[in-house]
């Protein structure tokens, strides 16, 4: 009986992993480019939001994503609300995919991810360049989208492992 009520450290770690990683990422503005390789950059937050809102939305709420977007905008210095809007668009695509998918398939998810990031980056460029007249480098956006797409499988494996742990802990 006591084991049923016991909350282990690992279960807390796994259940708060998505939200903690999201906020640490926006506060740190991770680009994982510690070697300063020219042109290399990818959007870790897009991968994180896409995966968790698709596979286990209970551990990454929409309000947290909205707030994370606001923080991201303040830190990188773009008009407030742009990132929140982009992140919530990812959520809407994943919510739609979740509703129409009976048997999840990695390739379908990966291709949907490509479509989603192309869509949101295009919207972001339109908002920044045409509405707010902030000059942006289209090539950087395209390269960033490419690397984000390429790195999705890698993080899919990692997040899937953590997600399995969360599900096991919940059913324990």
């Amino acid at each position, binding site marked *: 009986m006591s084991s049923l009520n016991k909350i282990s450290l690992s279960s807390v770690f796994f259940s708060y992993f998505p939200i903690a990683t999201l*906020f*640490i990422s926006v*506060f*740190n*503005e991770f*680009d994982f480019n*510690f070697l*300063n390789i*020219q042109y290399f*950059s990818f959007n870790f937050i897009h991968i994180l939001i896409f995966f968790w809102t698709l596979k286990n*939305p*209970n551990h990454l*709420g*929409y*309000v947290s*994503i*909205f707030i994370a*977007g*606001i*923080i991201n905008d*303040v*830190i*990188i*210095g*773009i*008009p*407030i*609300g*742009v990132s*929140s*809007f982009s992140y*919530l*668009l990812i*959520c*809407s695509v994943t*919510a*739609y995919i*979740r*509703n*129409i998918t009976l048997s999840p398939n990695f390739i379908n998810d990966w291709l949907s991810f490509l479509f989603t990031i192309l869509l949101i980056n295009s919207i972001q460029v339109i*908002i*920044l360049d045409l*509405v*707010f007249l*902030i*000059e*942006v*480098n289209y090539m*950087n*956006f395209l390269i*960033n989208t490419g690397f984000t797409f390429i790195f999705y499988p890698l993080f899919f494996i990692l997040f899937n492992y953590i997600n399995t742990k969360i599900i096991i802990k919940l059913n324990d």
Partner: protein
Amino acid sequence: MATGRDDFVIAFRSAFLKKKDKQKFSLLTLIFLSIFVIILSNFDFKIIKIIKLGINEVVYRSSFLVSIPENKITKTKIQIESHMEVYDNYKNLELELEILKQKKLSNNFLKLENDKLRKLINESIESNEILAKVLIDKESPFLKSIILNKGTKDKIKIGMAVVDEVYLVGKIIEVNYTNSRALLLSDLNSKIPVLLEPLGIQAVASGTGKEYGEIQYTKEEYKNKIKTNEIAVYTSGLGGLFKPGVPVGKISKENINRVNFFSDFRQLEYVKIFSYNIDSKY
């Protein structure tokens, strides 16, 4: 056909309007809220300005605290690298020091001469410097800027120049109560009037979004002259934004449109923010 449409409508309604047990707002509400925030941030109302300042203050301080572990790792990496290269660096520095000693003597003479000439035309340049710590230097792939720990309470104003030692790194574009944001010279939106010396040609140094800048809007003939000369880029002082003669970078002979900045923007820790005032009686 009708079934397919119904399925789409059901999936759409479920995705956008349905709330889970723990969620307080539907996705559609939050999307509309973010659009509302984007529109609001476009207006210049006083209340919006105050809210923005409040958010900036809290977020910048929090980001500084959250970034401490990552900054420690980056610093350690840089320290290890510099330790590995210490002997080579020492030899190079010895050579450089000798050259600099010689140059300093002639510079002292030029400075005195310059001061005398300024006195002759009753012109004096006064500048105020404020030392600031870099709180956040997370450059996004799209915007290059840094957050400094000085704001309106330290009399920082938009447009003030930011220098690393003596080298220009950018200008202030946003000021909050205790902190401010500086746009780096490498940002695509940065454009500053410069002077190409010793040719004496006016130009505009523009950011490229990469680690170097680019020379724009200048005479075509400079391209021929540059092949034989080593060109240094200084602020021209045109437009009254920056003090004239602040070193910006160097133009390499290999790529005559590229400005290699003197300062390394990835390793800024402390910078000086300064304003200047030229007094002239003529």
